[in-house]
């Protein structure tokens, strides 16, 4: 018996789609603004290869912030579809929303650069600290502490000249 093909969306996703569908139906004007306004975020989600899609999240957050004044305006003016289409067809709306998305990308680029260079410097400093500490350990405990010298059961070098009896 052929196995039934597994659904790609889980039960949580299914609930989310149902709730989302109902919301889109109830708040169709807001959904229109959101769908058009969040196109940069959708693109970012598609092209983002970072772990956890952090860049898309960054862009998406600012992009959503750019959409939010227009959504509130539509909602305040009766939440009808004509108002929403009027707003979305205005170039000003698109410019504002997409500029916000661009700001999101800029934030991502700037913060990544800054944090990365700070971490590189910090790592280099740590490397020097490790080397210094290792030198201190070698100075206090001898080359035996490095583990590169063959040791006897007591932890002393096997070829230690002082360990063998020298006739007086």
């Amino acid at each position, binding site marked *: 018996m052929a196995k039934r093909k597994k659904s790609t969306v889980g039960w949580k996703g299914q609930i989310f789609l149902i709730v989302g569908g109902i919301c889109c139906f109830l708040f169709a004007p807001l959904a229109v603004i959101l769908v058009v306004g969040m196109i940069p975020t959708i693109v970012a989600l598609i092209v983002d290869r970072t772990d956890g899609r952090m860049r898309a999240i960054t862009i998406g957050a600012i992009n959503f912030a750019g959409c*939010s004044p227009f959504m509130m305006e539509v909602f*305040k003016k009766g939440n009808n579809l004509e108002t929403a289409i009027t707003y979305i067809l205005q170039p000003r709306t698109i410019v504002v929303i997409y500029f916000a998305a661009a700001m999101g990308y800029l934030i991502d680029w700037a913060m990544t650069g800054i*944090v990365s260079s*700070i971490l590189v410097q910090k790592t280099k400093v740590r490397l020097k600290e490790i080397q210094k500490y290792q030198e201190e350990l070698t100075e206090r405990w001898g080359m035996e502490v490095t*583990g590169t010298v063959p040791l006897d059961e007591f932890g002393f070098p096997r070829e230690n000249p002082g360990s063998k009896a020298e006739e007086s």
Partner: protein
Amino acid sequence: MSDVTVQDEPVKKAESPPVAPPPQTSALAGDVVFNESITINAGSRLPQYDRGLVKAYTASGTNKAPANLFALICEDHLTPRIHKASNYAAIVNPSLTHLAASGVVDWTPAGKEKYCFIYKHSLGNPLMKDDLRGALGMKPDVALNAVIRPLVSVLADLRDKDIFHGNIRVSNIFDGGSKNIERAVLGECLSCPVSYLQPVLYETIDRALCAPIGRGPGTSQDDIYALGVSLAMMLRHSDPMEGLSDEEIIERKMEEGSYSALLGKDRLTGQILELMRGLLYDDENQRWTIDEVMVWLDGRRLSSKQTSRRVKANRPVTFQGKKYSRPELLVNDFKKNPGEARQLIEDGELEQWLSRALEDKPATARFENAVRLAEEGGKGSDYPERLATRVSIALHPEGPISYRNISVLPEGVGPALTEAFIMKRDLQSYHDFFMNYFITQWIDCQAKNVPDVSNLVGRFDSARAFLRIKGLGGGLEKCIYAMNPEVHCLSEKVAKFYIRSPEDLMRAYEKISANSNHPALFFDRHIAAFLSVKDRKNIDPHLYDMNAPETYRRVLAEAKTLATIQKRSQMEKFPGIAKWMVENLGPVYERFHDRELREKTRKAAERLIVAGDLAKIVLLFDDPAVYQNDNIEFRRAMRQYHDLEQETIEIERALRNEATLGLETGHQVAAIVAGILAGIVIMASAFSGFGQNVVPF
């Protein structure tokens, strides 16, 4: 043979009466002070009082010490009888040389310490200069009053003090400085091993067959015999044994008996004849005792005893082309050619001679047992020697144990071994002598009870055990000190000192430490053996470490031993030894992993040098917790180092892609910043939007 064997030396005819020669002076040697009260004049010799290689010098005392003295400076290879000195000094008898003092003196002419005996210089001249030949022709009544009475009283005193003199002979009996002998004075007996200087003539037949160094402690009966021989020399008018060798003297004594051999045609009469017969009985059981001599001196007559002759075969046996009728003489020559002796034994010729010509059934039984014992040891390369030795014990049980060049009574093996060691003679023979364990056979063959037999067997057992120990604290060195308890330490490291106890050793080390070229380590085989015999609690617990291949263990074991001696003997402080010890501690510091701990311990040890308390220095290294903690910390440091290594590898790997380093974190930070900003904008829009136009433009 010993360098000082005198029996066969060509000698000058004795002159009579001897005149005391003046002291021989030497400009090279000066005064040597002994105990701050006696000065020994090293440039003024007294050859008439020499004891072979032991030389006599004039000495003078100050304060309470007598003014007129002479000193005998002992030789290293001839162990003096030091333990008898206090008993000897306690004897107050005008006919015995009075011991004024004895001890170790810094003998500057030799540049080393020597043991010396200092006697009152009132001996006069020896009655005869030649011990072997000549005759004094002394009248019996003069001999009785001037010699016999004084010397018998001396022998009684010596017996009471448990001293065997072993040095009674005519050259050691003096006139006391008077022209006509009024009271003879007996010379000393302490400066050489027992009977070492005694010619064969003065020894009983059995002891005469021993090497002089190996005769062992005798009995007062042997002194009685020597007195008899000395009296015979004084009383006789001619020498019946003139020109005879040692062997011929012994043979003559066996053939004729000592009395006849010594007095020849001289006819003694009356009471003196009775005395001389009593003194010169060859059988020790028949010989008079001191008490019997004293009874005789009191004028009482003693019943004569039955004389018994030694067994003689009715036909001789031939060995090395010489005919032998007496087993004692035959087996005495076995050591000269053990190979031929083996042939004689294995051919059955000897057994036949024993049973038919000698008709001595006990000797035959002992012989068969001896052959069996020799065969038990295997027929290796040394079989002929072992066989010869065992057969000689069987056929002459009263005689010495003769093995290769050794010919000793069991009690005399210690001094013989000591002499062989110092004179660098063959020591392998002594090794084999102990390992072959002839002692039990010798004891089994004795007709009379051997005194303190368990002690004797125990000492030979110990010697075998010592020889199995190859490292420090064993070997022939330990046999020397165990078998000859009076010998001083023979180590090269302390060659300039006469060390008789662990305390002496400590003081010698303190002096040696002042020299910059002192040896690195304190102990060698001799010192370890010496200490182990003198007081095993000092060193035996540390011998295992002392034999370890690691220097640090040897150094620490030495330090612990020295500290133990200082503490147990409650000795003074030794800053010199402490400094020497601390100089040696380098490898011990290295047993700490922690360099800081090493330095700290080194400084602590150096601070303790001045105090000279060795135990405190040792205590620095005696706490196992210190080593344990050091090891734990070291292991922890190793783990830390390893973790750091791993971290370095990870960092270096990350730095190889420096461009991507921190990107992920950067994205995360950017997301957070963006989220916060978005929140602020949305909130601001919400608050302002419901009051007026949401879109501000």
